[in-house]
């Protein structure tokens, strides 16, 4: 199986999930826009959350694209290297596609309902609008790539672990996650600084995300290259 075939095959895996996701998003936007127009009249309204929900969606996508593709590649005499190259290119394509779709959706909402769109993609602190859109696009692409890679790393890690290992890691990860969430309240000012830092420095943060992505992908490859098939 060539890398191009692997790319097409793995890209297909995302297709139905992405379509369903955008149908839901469009429905939510339409309903809330309608309700807002009826209740507020011609006053301005804000729509938040598309980027955040996309990040979670893409993270979950990353967690669901390993096992089936891995076994399928092995069945058709393909290598782990082809699988990884195919996944990386398909993941990048999905991230880029979703970034562009989000941008289009926000511009469409802005055009149709005259919403100023409180989305952070426009909140980037750059005066020049095209440059702001470009930096926002690059920033979200890098962010999506980071999260899809993180999801992939988690699922690969879990695939390699045995049953006991899965329990231990799940409990530890869950515990750490809960502790982190509870601790965030105490460090609210720092959290705010971290959250708003990308808006002021999208290019720097994009670079940082890419470095983290590269590190995560390196771990992914280290785990995949000798991965045994569990069937």
């Amino acid at each position: 199986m060539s890398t191009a075939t692997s790319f097409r095959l793995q890209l297909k895996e995302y297709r139905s999930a992405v379509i369903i996701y955008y149908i839901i998003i469009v429905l939510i936007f339409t309903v809330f826009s309608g309700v807002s127009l009826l209740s507020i009249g011609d006053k301005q309204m804000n729509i938040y959350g598309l980027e955040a929900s996309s990040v979670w969606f893409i993270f979950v996508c990353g967690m669901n694209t390993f096992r089936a593709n891995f076994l399928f590649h092995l069945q058709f005499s393909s290598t782990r290297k082809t699988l990884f190259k195919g996944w990386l290119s398909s993941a990048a394509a999905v991230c880029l596609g979703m970034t562009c779709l989000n941008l289009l959706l926000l511009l469409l909402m802005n055009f149709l309902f005259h919403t100023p769109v409180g989305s952070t993609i426009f909140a980037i602190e750059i005066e020049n609008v095209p440059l702001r859109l470009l930096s926002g696009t690059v920033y979200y692409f890098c962010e999506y790539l980071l999260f899809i890679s993180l999801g992939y790393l988690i699922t690969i890690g879990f695939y390699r672990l045995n049953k006991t290992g899965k329990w231990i890691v799940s409990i530890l990860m869950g515990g750490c996650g809960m502790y982190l969430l509870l601790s965030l309240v105490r460090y609210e000012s720092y959290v705010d600084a971290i959250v708003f830092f990308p808006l002021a420095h999208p290019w720097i943060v994009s670079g940082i995300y890419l470095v983290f992505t590269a590190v995560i992908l390196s771990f992914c490859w280290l785990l995949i290259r000798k991965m045994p098939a569990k069937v």
Partner: protein
Amino acid sequence: MKLCCHDLTRKFGDTVALNRVNLCLEEPKICGLLGRNGAGKTTLLRLMTNYIQPNEGSITMDERNLWENEKALQQIFFVTENSYFGEMTAQKLIDFMAGAYPNFDKEQCLAYAKRFELSLNKKYPTLSTGYKSVLRAILALSAHTPFLFLDEPTLGMDAFHRELFYKLLIESYSEAPSCILLSTHLIGEVEGLLENVIILDHGKVLIDESAEKLLSQGYCVSGRISEVDDYCSGKKVIGSNSVGGLKTAAILGEHTAVPDTLDVTGLSLQQLFVQLVGSENPS
């Protein structure tokens, strides 16, 4: 083309599934991979197809390491009960195979599907166990790769489909000879097909030789119980069966001076296999 295993060892925890296995497969030949449950047959096949890596030793194809070697792996097609074909329909799988394997004969595969009465628009997971085996079998028979590994290919197939499968296997092999490694417990059914026999026992290669040579190591005599018992005294009897007043005994060694009252026939592979790997003593 030559596929060789060199001192292949694979462990699962404390269990040694394969212990320093050495063997070579060369095309064209139909080989039987026989062994009791847990002998290491599937592990060997999974190692030779890159599903798992050996703990020790290596596998080479024409002197080149097989691990993550896409070009070499393309020369092998492996089907097993656990083959993963996703949610694809039979038709889509056939189309995909045509793109993935250059020698795959799509027309032949479709013709086979028709003969097996396989519904092409059904998704692989929704097929019955028997028809899943049918689909795997027709994909394998049409792949025309130099090496074809079949792990329990007739699992769940009815008698008619099994007969048809063996017939098509011979047809396909005659048209395009390749190295077919057939792993099965139904020794009686495949006995006539095999040119070479590999018997694994407790992770080791016990036998690796031609079926003809293997079966010439013994013979069967049948006749009246008393006459058979008389003839068998002092000989190595590896199995016997009595029905009414008649008895059949399988004997290892060359047959000499058999009385006219006794019938002599060839040894069956199953009898020999049971004797070689069975834990029970021969009667």
